């Protein structure tokens, strides 16, 4: 995308984001008015589940975040990086970007911290800066999403969910390297 289309796209999406929620609310409320729904009673009925859902998430999120927090504090990541660098350099991933790829599924704020540091060091418009920014945007924090989504309904046995999520994350990281090599050289 050249600059013109990028900014047009950005403006369009931002306008969309700003108006999406008010538009949804207006549509929902007008339909309710038209169908003579007792909106206040129904709203309160639905809303009261909010508390239980949030409370149900707690044990799952504690389990996941504690394990990830301990892992980050232990310094094991640096050893993993040393071990994996020869492999990832084969696919053209710079050594600096590997911590971003490894941290992405574990912690959103942790990844953002690494990306920010790298951009401060190499500059946001360097290849490393562009690549790691892309990597940050290319997937979600898999373990967090897993804990919250499955935790909210009390699912303990996650079957192949972690595997599918991590395969997706890996594909996202590799795709980021590929597309950045093509677009930013």
């Amino acid at each position: 995308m050249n600059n013109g289309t990028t900014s047009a796209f950005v403006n369009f999406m931002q306008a969309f984001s700003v108006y999406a929620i008010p538009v949804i609310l207006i549509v929902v409320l007008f339909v309710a008015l038209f169908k003579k729904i007792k909106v206040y009673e129904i709203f309160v009925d639905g809303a009261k589940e909010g508390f239980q859902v949030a409370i149900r998430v707690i044990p799952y999120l504690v389990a996941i975040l504690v394990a990830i927090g301990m892992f980050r504090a232990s310094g094991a990541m640096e050893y993993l990086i040393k071990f994996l660098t020869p492999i990832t350099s084969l696919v053209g991933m710079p050594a600096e970007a590997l911590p971003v790829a490894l941290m992405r599924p574990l912690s959103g704020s942790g990844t953002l911290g690494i990306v920010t540091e790298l951009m401060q060091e190499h500059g946001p418009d360097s290849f490393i800066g562009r690549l790691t920014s892309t990597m940050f945007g290319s997937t979600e924090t898999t373990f967090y999403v897993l804990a919250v989504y499955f935790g909210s309904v009390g699912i303990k046995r996650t079957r192949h969910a972690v595997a599918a999520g991590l395969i997706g994350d890996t594909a996202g990281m590799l795709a980021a390297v590929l597309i950045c090599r093509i677009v930013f050289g």
Partner: protein
Amino acid sequence: MLNYIWLGLMLISLIFGAITGNLQSVTDAAIEYAGIAVDISLGLIGIMAFWLGIMKIAEKGGLIKIISRLIRPLAKFLFPDIPKDHPAIGSMMMNVVANWLGLGNAATPLGLKAMEELQELNPDKETATNAQVIFLAINTASITFIPMTVIAIRTELNSMNPFEIISTAIFASTIACFTAVTAAKLLQRLPWIKKTNPMNMKTVKGADNE
């Protein structure tokens, strides 16, 4: 699998913590992150209540059914176990669109609502169904149109063009999402994963009754 990952993360942390002399910070991190987890969960209460209330009104008005009907062909392919035009499909669609628009505050409550509706179809309340795994895959590798957080940091660091990573992020996140969903679809066919599908129980029970 999560049992092994969890055990692995904890043991590696403790062992490496001991080797590198970081043991104190490892245990400090455990306590700190337990607190963070509770803060995050409690922070969901208000926004969850709001969106669950609005969604209930939308449901009563028949809007969720209409959305479910709109994406019937795609839903049939991704979620063959879900009955036609089930409200879970409408909720999932709204979650996905909210994610695309970067409306994180709305996306999570809508997604959890969808998860709850999928759970109603689940005969075993503690084991994920195929549909729930696929929906999770869509969310763990969700397509991002504008990664606003990282763009904000690029702007702050005086990037010449903070937005230039949008097209590359769309590409990479689309690949991630398709791969995650495909992986979920393929993995669910493996015999030892197929066998654990809670939806099997339903058919087995049905067969017993006959």
